């Protein structure tokens, strides 16, 4: 579904959560976003459902909430060891580290205020983050690809968040 989808439509669909994937764009400045990414950014600020953002939309989450995204000092392509500093929710059971697949030229260089960093790699400091209070989650790596063998665990953990949200 495109990020221009109105919130009411997600409600009408009885969506339980939202996952946004990656793409080739750069999101270093809010002013220079494409329409599609501006919609995605707006969606993040309005939605109440739990949300998981991957790669470019993870970076967009940082830009949207006052963090900084910039050209990576060292980009990452293919397998990367991700070290978990905080198992929190989505990375539960993944300490101390796991191999994830990456493909990015940009990275978050400063996480936004009120977000906590959950994992990092040698080249990239914000591999995963979450908002302290809200159900907003972001990962730089790709949990959805086959070669990230623990990727399914990240989704299962996210689904637990979704269950808790539905019960509350």
């Amino acid at each position, binding site marked *: 579904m495109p990020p221009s989808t109105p919130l009411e439509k997600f409600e009408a669909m009885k969506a339980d959560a939202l996952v946004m994937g*990656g793409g*080739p764009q750069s999101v270093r400045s809010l002013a220079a976003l494409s329409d599609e990414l501006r919609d995605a950014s707006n969606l993040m600020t309005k939605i109440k459902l739990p949300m998981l953002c991957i790669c470019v939309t993870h970076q967009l989450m940082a830009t949207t909430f006052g963090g900084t995204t910039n050209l990576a000092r*060292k980009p990452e*392509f*293919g397998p990367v060891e991700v070290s978990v500093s905080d198992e929190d929710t989505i990375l539960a059971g993944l300490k101390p580290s796991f191999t994830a*697949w990456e493909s990015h030229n940009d990275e978050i260089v400063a996480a936004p205020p009120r977000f906590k960093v959950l994992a990092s790699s040698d080249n990239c400091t914000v591999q995963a983050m979450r908002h302290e209070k809200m159900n907003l989650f972001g990962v730089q790596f790709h949990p959805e690809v*086959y*070669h990230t063998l623990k990727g399914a665990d990240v989704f299962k953990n996210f689904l637990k968040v979704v269950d808790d949200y539905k019960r509350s």
Partner: protein
Amino acid sequence: MSVTLEGFRPSSYLTSETARLQETVGNGKAIAAVSGGVDSTVAALVAKRALGERLLPVFIDTGFLRAGEPENVKARLGDPSLGLKVKLVKAGGRFLEATKGEAMAEEKRKKFRETFYQVLGEEARKDGCDFVVQGTIAPDWIETQGGIKTQHNILEQVGIDSLSKYGFRVVEPMSELYKDQVRVLGRHLDLPKDMSERQPFPGPGLLVRCIGTVSKKKLDLLKSSTMIVEEKLGPFNYDQYFAGVIENKFAKEPVYKNLDETAAGALGLPSSETRVDVFEDRVTGVKGDTRSYGRLAGIRIQEDSRETYGWLPEKLRLAQSSIVEKFVEVTRVAVLVKEKRGGPSLSVVVRAVSTRDFMTAAVAQVPWKILKDIAESILKTGDSSRVYYDITPKPPATIEFE
């Protein structure tokens, strides 16, 4: 288990696609473009269920096929268990003429596509077919639309109107599926295991493994090397394995001088013991979801340490990632297995990967002994002077070279 397999029901997929095909084609006739690969074979079987005798399977011999392939495929698909009576169309000369002198991968692919559909259009006219059924799957259009590479079987998704241009409409019964789902569907249709698990072969075939311009010399070397690689690696069950051929012409940019040091640093060797050659012809890669038409770097480790490193995949992986991180232009790294001084100025690059859905791929850990064995067999033919092993995952490389 791959994420894409969960929730995929071949029987309900088949029911809905059969109905959709019958509605689209009506009482008309359709060609099924087949290559013997699992995608087009399964698409043809689905279409046969829907259309019966109104489906005409056509195999185009592009000249970029492996030795004996057209005849083998025709015989295999014509087996009573599959019942696809294939018409063989020989068009090798036209394809070679259309791609002659072209070094750019995307141009080669587009010229191939153009010739491919012209030939299909002629066949459709001859047989009174208004439709062409093809085995396009999701990664094909995802990568074409995303500008990663032009797959030859993508038309409508990039705004090409096949009806006005070639005289037929395209039907793609599997355009939303991934490779692993296609294999499940194939098994559901009783496709024999050797066919449903068949080694993938790209539509443009050896054209995209002949890096840079095509020549008869390169194509011949590629055919013999392909046979050697398939024979030696076949028993290992890697998801994909093949050879590519590239000319030993090297880029001279001064920045590449620093590559020797980067590689040596990552390998923990003095820089006098490693040398990195950057090939002039470009290869396709994908960095950060964007196409990157870049360089192939070949690491040459001094002969007496080479074997040791051949058994240290982690060290080689580190050398590969250090190079690709630091040199924006480099999308692929290969390590020299063996060379023959004074041989013809051509290199063979062997590639083997493990991949489930062809969206990501890991380098296969082929035992060094086997790689050496392959290299010796290839060099023995006397048509090349170097044999490399590609040590790049996808991303940043793609699975195929172009």
